[in-house]
């Protein structure tokens, strides 16, 4: 397997292919700032939960670094992400809307009460028609064997994957380390 691009995002730092991108904001405000600066053409970003915003902006920066033609329907790239906290931040936000004191369930929050929505959001944005998967794991190192197996499945049409760790436990506690990985 060959890794061509890598991004790491913490609440205070963004490192793309080894280069630190200077940030003036932190936490979720930083993610919104990154969106405005580097994408700003996908209003649905504002409807996403923090986990999806994290995965979305990490992927945007990765794909911009890759520089290949985008938004062309393809089945040869997978999106395989993992984390430890599932969709806990959004689950808590949703729980507040169904409390006994103030029972107004939010449909917009409910749709993000599954972590694999982030892989779907990335696939929809980029017109990836192939494999998407989201795993709940104890540690990031457990993901790589899964990615390797997925890419090398004999009948697979896959040549590459956007793969890595994408974890968020609240608006100011998150971590992403995502790579573009090629089969050969």
């Amino acid at each position, binding site marked *: 397997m060959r890794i061509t691009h890598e991004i790491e995002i913490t609440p205070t730092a963004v490192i793309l292919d080894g280069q630190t991108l200077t940030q003036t904001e932190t936490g979720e405000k930083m993610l919104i700032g990154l969106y405005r600066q580097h994408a700003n053409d996908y*209003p649905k970003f*504002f*409807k996403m939960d923090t986990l999806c915003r994290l995965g979305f902006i990490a992927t945007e920066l990765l794909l911009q670094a890759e520089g290949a033609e985008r938004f062309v329907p393809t089945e040869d790239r997978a999106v395989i992400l993992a984390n430890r906290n599932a969709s806990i931040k959004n689950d808590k936000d949703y729980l507040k809307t169904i409390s006994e004191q103030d029972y*107004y369930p*939010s*449909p*917009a929050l409910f*749709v993000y009460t599954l972590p694999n929505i982030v892989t779907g959001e990335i696939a929809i944005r980029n017109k990836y028609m192939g494999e998407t998967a989201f795993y709940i794991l104890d540690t990031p190192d457990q993901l790589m064997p899964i990615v390797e197996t997925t890419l090398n499945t004999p009948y697979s049409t896959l040549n590459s994957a956007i793969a890595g760790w994408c974890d968020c436990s609240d608006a100011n506690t998150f971590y992403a380390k995502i790579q573009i990985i090629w089969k050969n």
Partner: protein
Amino acid sequence: MEELIEQLKQQIIEALNFEDMTPADIDAQAPLFGEGLGLDSIDALELIMLLDREYGIKLADPKSGKEVFRSVRSMAEYIEKNRTK
């Protein structure tokens, strides 16, 4: 009515997370779905919750939704006639 329309625009912006939008950006006569604001089915559910939460209106008949949610003005007219709070 105009005051209610402005209040409703602000509530829609907050409920649907239109972070880049101000009430002045919303045409009260424009269709809410399809063209205009281009809302989707999840947004429709949020609007139903908004009517219940802010104005005490429970939309019991799904067929009425098409007319109620035609535009911000049609929503405001419906609220004025049916609000319980």
